């Protein structure tokens, strides 16, 4: 069986300014629109990309516009992999996401109303990984194209 090498579809950088996650979302959506994701799974990927980019801008790069967020989109067989990299280093201070969000505790005032970002990402994509080399912090989002499980949650 012939192994097909991963194909880089796009790479780009964004200034670390609040709101720029919308640019990442739109560009990734445009890049992957014709490679087999259903509308529902494309919406999930868009949400995951936006949340991961928000984390990179805010927690990783401290909202400092001069430090770019790097985004790379790769196709590897039936997988679309989006890598979002900031300079947040080993300890990524996603301070409000240390515990699983619990809506009842939030409604009772026992937990901050915030802290949904990583939770949403995990629930939107097929796989999520985080790597760091000490300075660069990358979140990897994997979404498979096609398949019977495509819209299982819809």
């Amino acid at each position: 069986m012939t192994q097909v090498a991963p194909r880089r579809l796009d790479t780009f950088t964004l200034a670390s300014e609040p709101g720029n996650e919308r640019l990442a979302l739109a560009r990734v959506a445009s890049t992957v629109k014709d490679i087999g994701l259903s509308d529902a799974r494309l919406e999930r990927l868009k949400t995951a990309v936006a949340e991961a980019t928000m984390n990179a801008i805010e927690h990783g790069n401290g909202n400092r516009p001069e430090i770019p967020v790097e985004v790379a989109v790769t196709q590897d067989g039936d997988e679309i992999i989006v890598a979002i990299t900031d300079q947040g280093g080993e300890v990524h201070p996603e301070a409000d996401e240390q515990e699983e969000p619990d809506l009842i505790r939030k409604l009772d005032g026992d937990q901050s109303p915030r802290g949904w970002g990583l939770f949403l990402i995990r629930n939107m994509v097929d796989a999520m990984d985080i790597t760091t080399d000490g300075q660069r912090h990358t979140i990897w989002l994997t979404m498979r194209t096609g398949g019977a499980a495509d819209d299982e949650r819809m």
Partner: protein
Amino acid sequence: MTSACEATTRTLPGAAVIELSGEVDGSAAAVLTDAYERAVTASPENHDTVVLDFAAVDYINSTGIALIVSVLARARAERRKVVASGLSPHYREIFDITRLSDFIELFPDLDRAVSELTHPAA
């Protein structure tokens, strides 16, 4: 921070309605809080139910979810019911995943929500 979210409020029989448009993210905090305040004070006879209509909303992120949680927490503390209408299938899914839909009844559109609130099924 400028918000790309707008909110209009109106009173219908049986409910105070907040119609949201644009983007529900962290910058929408003041818009949403003000709208809630207007909605419940403008219609005291109807203020036991608040309808959040998302039909014209094209983006909700995690900080927007946090704002909705805050509105729901306040409404519950004030013994008000919150319902939502007009969510896209994707955001309905997010309401399910976050369990917001356990506490906020979801309607396909505002007409259905108002009809159900004004003439509840026996």
